[in-house]
């Protein structure tokens, strides 16, 4: 019994990475921008947070301040990336796919150059326990959940509420569906696009930071952030562009991802090593199936925003 509980909690903890990544991407996509830079942004968020912790990790600052400053570092770096992306795609109306891919190339590269200079004994060893508040030091599996995990759940729920229940959310969705109409009713399209992209990037960046500092808490963790970024983009489709659904989706992704290593512990089931990659493939296959089914059913509310991927130029409408 306990084994199953551990498995579930591990899936929750792992899933929080995706909650951040895909909630961030949903906000951007709701403004009509398919941001393929999310993997790079998540990497930069991780690098930014660790860079700050590398400076203050051993200082005498109170723990809560260290936690907050680390989060701020992640936010600043990833939002700067979001700013580059939105300047190029919103103001300069560049092709979104190409800009996003360039940002991913840049972000992943810069993170690798930065992270190798940092000292894991400073940025990781001490702060790791602070981020596990309030369960730090417990012997059971609950110790895997910390501040950043609960923040992820709250952010996803809040984003869902803002998108569907507030005026701001309504306006944002209008911008993503049909910017010309939104512009005509007096919504500042440019401002909404910038805000959604930058806030979305900040949220996504926290995902990379969480994965490095809390979930994996290892020196090599940063090398796998990029792959998780791509998976976060996949999860957006899976969650049908609804932030609260990312919580369920990412737990499922977490289960599928960790079942590959977990399944060998279950008595009665024998899997060969060769099966492992096939199990790891499952999240992507499931995503494809969801994408296909939602396009066949063709229900309006389950579709991508109508103007996703298109730039808006007022004088061309």
């Amino acid at each position: 019994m306990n084994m199953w509980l551990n498995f579930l909690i591990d899936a929750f903890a792992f899933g929080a990475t995706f909650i951040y990544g895909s909630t961030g991407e949903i906000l951007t996509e709701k403004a009509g921008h398919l941001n393929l830079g999310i993997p790079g942004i998540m990497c930069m968020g991780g690098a930014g947070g660790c860079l700050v912790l590398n400076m203050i990790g051993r200082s005498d600052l109170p723990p809560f301040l260290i936690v907050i400053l680390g989060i701020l570092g992640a936010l600043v770096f990833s939002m700067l990336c979001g700013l580059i992306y939105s300047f190029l795609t919103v103001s300069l109306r560049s092709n979104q796919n190409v800009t996003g891919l360039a940002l991913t190339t840049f972000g992943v590269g810069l993170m690798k150059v930065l992270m190798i200079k940092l000292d894991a004994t400073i940025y990781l060893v001490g702060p790791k326990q602070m981020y596990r508040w309030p369960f730090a030091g417990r012997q059971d599996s609950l110790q895997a959940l910390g501040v950043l995990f609960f923040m992820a759940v709250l952010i996803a729920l809040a984003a869902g509420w803002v998108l569907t229940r507030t005026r701001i959310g309504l306006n944002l969705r209008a911008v993503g569906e049909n910017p010309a109409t939104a512009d005509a009713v007096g919504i500042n399209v440019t401002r909404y696009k910038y805000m959604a992209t930058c806030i979305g990037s900040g949220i996504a960046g926290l995902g990379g930071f969480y994965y490095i500092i809390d979930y994996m808490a290892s020196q090599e963790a940063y090398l796998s952030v990029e792959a998780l970024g791509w998976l976060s983009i996949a999860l957006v489709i899976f969650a049908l562009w609804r932030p609260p659904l990312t919580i369920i989706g990412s737990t499922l992704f977490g289960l599928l991802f960790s079942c590959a290593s977990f399944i060998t512990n279950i008595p009665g089931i024998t899997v060969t090593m060769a099966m492992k990659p096939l199990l790891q493939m499952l999240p992507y296959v499931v995503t494809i199936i969801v994408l296909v089914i939602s396009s066949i059913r063709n229900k309006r509310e389950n579709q991508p925003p109508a103007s996703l991927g298109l730039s808006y130029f007022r004088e061309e409408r």
Partner: protein
Amino acid sequence: MSKANKNGVREPLIHLSKRDSIHPGKALVIRLIAVVLGLVVCGLVAFLLIERLQQKPERIGDFYYSFIKGAFGTSRKFWKFLKNVSILLCISLALTPAFRMRFWNIGGEGQTLIGVLACIGVDFYWGGKLPEPLLLVLMLLAALAAGALWGTIPALFKAKWGTNETLFTLMMNYVATFLVSFFLMIWVTSGSGVLPQMKTGKLPTLGDNSYLLIILIVLALTIAMYVYLRYSKHGYEISVVGESVRTAQYVGINEKKVIIRTMILSGALCGLAGYLIGAGLDLSVSADSVGGQGFTAIMVSWLGKFNPLAMILTSGLIQVLNQGAAQISQDFDVPGALPNVIVGIILFFIIGSEFFLNYRVHFRKGKETVK
């Protein structure tokens, strides 16, 4: 300080209008300015990142010289440069027909990787049992078929139900990656996960240079693709579908047929790139065989305005930057990923410069009012 015209409406500081066309010389100047600005920013970023440069700022000249040295320094480096350009160009050429019909195939990585996997798979099971020429042909056919299959699956769903092809092809990349890991688990019994180089199924060498054949194949493909897109009926249909699906339907083009046909071609050519990597270079396969070039190729194709001849230049530029930055990493003792940072920065500037090619910027002038 707000300026208002007679009606009290504020005139915006910056006003944009779309250009109809731009003089090619002017376009070239804008692009060159972008690259130069990008290189300046690269220098600044390098100054922040590289300690050796902070200690000896006068070595900044060496920094820029490394870009030339990395690709053209020795004849060995130059051949390597030509080979790298060829492979990248091959994948870019493969993606181009799809892009021209506005089918965002970002699955080049997976389509190429599955091509490598298929051709090495044939080599693994039949290598040594079949005569070498027959084996090479079978490997080629397997690579083409596998790439085509990987490209056609998303196209079928796009044509039938309008399934988003960007996201679909993106996911197919990862299915391919894990398939490679799966087969490596089966093929490599030692458990190291690294497939040793095959003894059979190597593309023949022309003259004394092992890269020459690959370079010539890709050169021929470039010209063929240029002719296909520009002068053939298929190429014309692709352009019409890309411009407007409704126009295509009106003039009697079956756009579903065009989408599927073009993606078979696109995927198969990615498979060809996989064959060149598998049979021509690596003689092995790993999850990293394509190494992100499938994604870089998207940018190469777009930067070249989907024109095969221009793409020779853009893939060349990317590889000069890549090899130059690798040289810098070596000369200045910077670990690993610096090329990505430099390519990323230059790309930002080139992407941004496109705006000034497509739009004219008017600033608000003095006290004049809007006409």
